[in-house]
């Protein structure tokens, strides 16, 4: 690999730090949902996928079963697999290196990699690895900080954490809601999940909205 491009390194670092900070919210949310500090840190070290992590603690914290929590988290993790499809031909790694590459294949590493396209293949690879490792380090550090803070904090509602978590999710999905089509899907998904909530067990109303994505995505749109 050639010399690290400065613009790529700067972007990787700023994305890593910003997203890493958000680990504080996860750490606190996980503790609030009843998970231990060790379990919280293991989720960030091993699962290492923000949306899936929030889903498992969100579903189980709301009284859902482990199975419905795992199912929701796994549905949210599918897109990492699709990123892998896109990154594999670029990285061309095998064996243990492929294991590491897979673990750090997330929204941010893929996003930065694709953003370096004008700078060439080396810059794309560097962007992927720098952002992947950068987010990993900051995300895990701030998860621990959030988990420790939450235990000292007491009732999460008194600090607004009960609203900060859905707000954090909203902020995560917001950049994807640029078009009217996506906004209609999002609004329909919110309605469906809320209507189903008193009827079927926790976690399932959210999984059910994947069917909406299938319906919306089936037709070719302009």
């Amino acid at each position, binding site marked *: 690999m050639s010399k690290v491009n400065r613009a790529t390194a700067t972007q990787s670092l700023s994305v890593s730090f910003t997203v890493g900070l958000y680990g504080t919210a996860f750490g606190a949310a996980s503790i609030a949902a009843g998970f231990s500090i060790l379990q919280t840190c293991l989720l960030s070290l091993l699962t290492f996928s923000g949306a899936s992590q929030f889903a498992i603690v969100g579903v189980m914290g709301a009284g859902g079963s482990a199975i419905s929590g795992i199912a929701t988290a796994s549905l949210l993790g599918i897109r990492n697999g699709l990123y892998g499809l896109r990154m594999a*031909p670029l990285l061309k790694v095998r064996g243990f290196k492929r294991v590491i590459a897979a673990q750090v294949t997330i929204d941010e590493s893929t996003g930065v990699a694709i953003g370096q396209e004008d700078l060439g293949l080396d810059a794309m690879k560097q962007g992927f690895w720098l952002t992947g490792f950068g987010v990993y380090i900051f995300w895990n550090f701030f998860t621990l900080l959030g988990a420790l803070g939450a235990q000292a904090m007491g009732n999460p*509602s008194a600090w607004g954490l009960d609203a*900060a978590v859905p*707000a954090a999710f909203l902020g995560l999905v917001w950049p994807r809601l640029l078009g009217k089509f996506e906004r209609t899907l999002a609004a329909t998904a919110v309605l469906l999940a809320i209507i189903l909530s008193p009827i079927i067990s*926790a976690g399932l109303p959210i999984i059910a909205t994947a069917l909406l994505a299938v319906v919306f995505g089936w037709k*070719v749109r302009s």
Partner: protein
Amino acid sequence: MNALWLGVLGTSLIAFLLKYLGHSIPEKYVNNPRALRINTLIPIALLSALVGVQTITEKGKWVIDQRLAGVAVALVALSLKAPYFVVVISAAITSAVIYRI
């Protein structure tokens, strides 16, 4: 093994397998535009649903409380293009203030 541990380890195992699978499937098998389109939409639907459920339900019941006000403020902040941390903090402050009144 209790339920929380099952959740932690099960989620982690499947999360990794999904990531690894993507790196291992030959590209030629998945270049189906419909599948790609649906998979782009799935996270949008799931994350939006999660926001809704976390905002106005509690243990399978509809509950309107300080959370809705907090998330509404976050929505306003987002439409004003506020930075990410401002969105989260403004929701937290709104909700906390209403909770304590």
